[in-house]
Structure formats: C-alpha cells, structure tokens
C-alpha cells in the first residue's frame, strides 16, 4: 500500500498540502526576519545557515503584503539540497493518505500554466489542495513575485 504523509498548511479558509518529507523546519512567526529582497515575500526565515523566503498567501494564493495576525506558523521546505521557501499559515498539521485513489488530479480544463495545484483531496468535508515542491517554488518565486 502506497502511504503518503502530507503537511497541511491552513490559512484564510484553505488547506494547502505539500510532502511532509520536504519540511525543513516549523517555527513561530516571531522568528521571521522581516527584511527580504524577494518580491511578494513578507520576510526570510533563517535556518541551518540559510535563508528561506516566507510567503503569506490569501485563499486565492495571492500574496499578503502585511502578514495577518492569525498567521502564526512558518513552515520551511527543502528542494533537495537547496533552500526553497517558507509558507506562513494559521495552522499546520499532517494528513496520511493510505489510498492514492483518494487524491484526485485536477482536471485538464482547470489547469493553468501558473497553477501550482495538481490534485484535490476531500477529508472531513474539507477540500484540500495538493501541490509539490517544484511547482510551488516556481509559483511563489515567479508568479507571486511578478
């Protein structure tokens, strides 16, 4: 059985899922350095001697310029050996998917070139949006920053 563990970042009423194995660190918002050169980011998280640009997103995946007070957690993701990005969120948890059929790919007519959402999952009557690290990195550093 192909079991997947996904990190769930909840913010603004949406639930964004990324592979748990790519999580580098989870820290509180107070540890965020609010100085950043990355467009669309609200700061940098410093961890393991590296800097991880941090993004606070709306439910439409648009960047907040000012981080809402309810966003309290920073989840930093690794892209292999490279630092990738930090998602700032209201809650962070995990979800275990035992049956990969539960994850439904986003249909062709809904896919756009800049959309990092690749699949959907329904749990406890909540729609969860599944992405992957590469797609999310491209979206944050290219589309959100644009």
């Amino acid at each position, binding site marked *: 059985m192909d079991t997947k563990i996904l990190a769930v970042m909840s913010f603004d009423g949406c639930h964004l899922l990324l592979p748990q194995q790519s999580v580098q660190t989870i820290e509180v918002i107070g540890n965020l350095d609010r100085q950043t050169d990355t467009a669309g980011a609200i700061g940098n998280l410093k961890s393991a001697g590296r800097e991880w640009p941090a993004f606070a997103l709306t*439910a439409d995946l648009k960047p907040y310029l000012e981080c809402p007070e309810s966003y309290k957690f920073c989840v930093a993701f690794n892209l292999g050996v490279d630092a990738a990005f930090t998602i700032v969120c209201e809650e962070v948890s995990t979800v275990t998917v035992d049956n990969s059929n539960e994850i439904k790919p986003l249909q*062709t*007519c809904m896919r*756009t070139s800049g*959309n990092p959402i690749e699949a*959907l999952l329904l749990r406890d009557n909540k729609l969860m*949006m599944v992405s992957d690290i590469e797609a999310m990195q491209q*979206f944050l550093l290219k589309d959100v920053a644009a």
Partner: protein
Amino acid sequence: MTLTSAWLLECSESFSIAISDHEMVEYVQSPVCYGIPATPPYCNSVMFWQNDFIPVMDVAGVNKTATEQANDIVCILNYQVAPMLPLQSIAVRANKAPEKIQVDDQLACDFPQEISASILSNIVLSSFTHADQSVLVLDIPKLCSAEFRQLANASR
C-alpha cells in the same frame, strides 16, 4: 424532417445549449461547490460527485473576465475524449432545470453573430432555432480540452 430528442440547458437569459440524451446524466439543485485558486474564471470551482471531483463550468461566462455564479443549478454531463477511453464528467451551470425538447433538423440555423465572433465558435458543432432563440450544440470534449482553455486564456 428528422426529429431528435435533446435537453435544453439555459446557461443565461440569452444563451442556451442543447445536450444529447447520452451526455446528460442528471441535474443538481444547490450543489456544494469548492473554489479552486488560479483556475480559469469560467471554470474555477469543483463539486464532489460520485466519489470524484468534477469541474463546474459556466459556459456563458467563457467570454467574460469574471463569472457571476448566481445560478443555483448544475447539470452533470458525461463525455468521452475518444472511443475506448473512460467517461469523464463535468457540471455545467444552468439558470433552471433542463427541458426535454424535440429538435427538428429543418430548424438548423447559422451561429448568432456574437458567437461567430467569440472563441465559443471553435467548439460549436451546430445551432438551431427553438422558441425564437438560437440554441448551440457544443463539442463537450473540446470544451474541456487544454486547447480550448489556452484559447480562452489567450482571448482575455
């Protein structure tokens, strides 16, 4: 004269499409739809139906930059991209419950001018007159294709 039965779907006050019997599955009143970010404005939500997520499409909104989403009915349609491939489903927003009609092939007409000038003309198979209104027959697999999504995106 040849009569064919079809379902009339009023997508907006001025825009109706005809759906064949084998494409129409059912209609759902007040569906629970979930918005998906970074998707085309005319197809920016899904509904959970028969253990799957299916796109909810506002066909009348294809030419608009934002959809009103005031309609509270969706019709579930089945389509097949090619023979032997599995059936796929979409939900199409409608103003009211679909109506069963008989289509007379002598009532075939040219596309309305506003359709000829729009990207919908790429997916219209034919059109006919019903109750003094033009009704379009759409190529549903093409409506759901990546090519049409790119066309719609480029036209905005």
